[in-house]
């Protein structure tokens, strides 16, 4: 085979040739450092604030964003069951998809505060299904988790991003 890599196209050799030929800008231009800074991922968001303060900030942010939540039970103050209208300008009759089926537009989410260690807390966000705005549960109730095979994460990612931004901006 006569397949090969063109030596003069290798960056180091190209740069040496450019400098040798005295191109004016050659000495000023440095190679792009493709720092593949590995994205560091965290579950949810972390907080060192006092637990009740964290919960207060989350309720304020949810209120500012127009979300609703179920009244927390006495024994579990650290879990918030949220219901959030995902109102997009998808189409004029926002609740019908092209094939005429009703599109549920109330997303449910569970936000829970966990203690990792002293003064170190984690706010976890979990998707908890859709509800249609006319109250009845959508057909999800008869689709088990396992059968559910095409789920769009974007509305969940979008709403949690908005909530995290609200918390970041407020704090």
């Amino acid at each position: 085979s006569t397949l090969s890599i063109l030596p003069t196209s290798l960056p180091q050799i190209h740069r040496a040739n450019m400098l040798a030929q005295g191109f004016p800008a050659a000495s000023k231009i440095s190679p792009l450092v493709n720092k593949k800074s590995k994205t560091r991922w965290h579950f949810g968001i972390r907080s060192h604030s006092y637990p009740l303060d964290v919960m207060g900030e989350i309720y304020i942010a949810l209120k500012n964003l127009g979300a609703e939540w179920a009244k927390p039970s006495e024994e579990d103050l650290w879990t918030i069951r949220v219901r959030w209208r995902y109102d997009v300008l998808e189409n004029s009759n926002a609740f019908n998809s092209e094939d005429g089926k009703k599109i549920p537009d109330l997303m449910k989410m569970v936000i829970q505060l966990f203690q990792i260690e002293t003064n170190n807390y984690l706010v976890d966000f979990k998707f908890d299904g859709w509800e249609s705005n006319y109250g009845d549960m959508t057909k999800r109730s008869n689709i088990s988790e396992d059968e559910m095979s095409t789920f769009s994460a974007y509305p969940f990612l979008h709403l949690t991003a908005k909530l995290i931004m609200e918390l970041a901006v407020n704090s």
Partner: protein
Amino acid sequence: LATSSIKHNTLCVASIVRYRQKYVTQILYAPL
């Protein structure tokens, strides 16, 4: 939900979702 630290005023959130028999880590970058 997974998040990464806010850098350059850009927020990055992610969620690992099963798509049929495969697993997609959906990563969304949005402006703060």
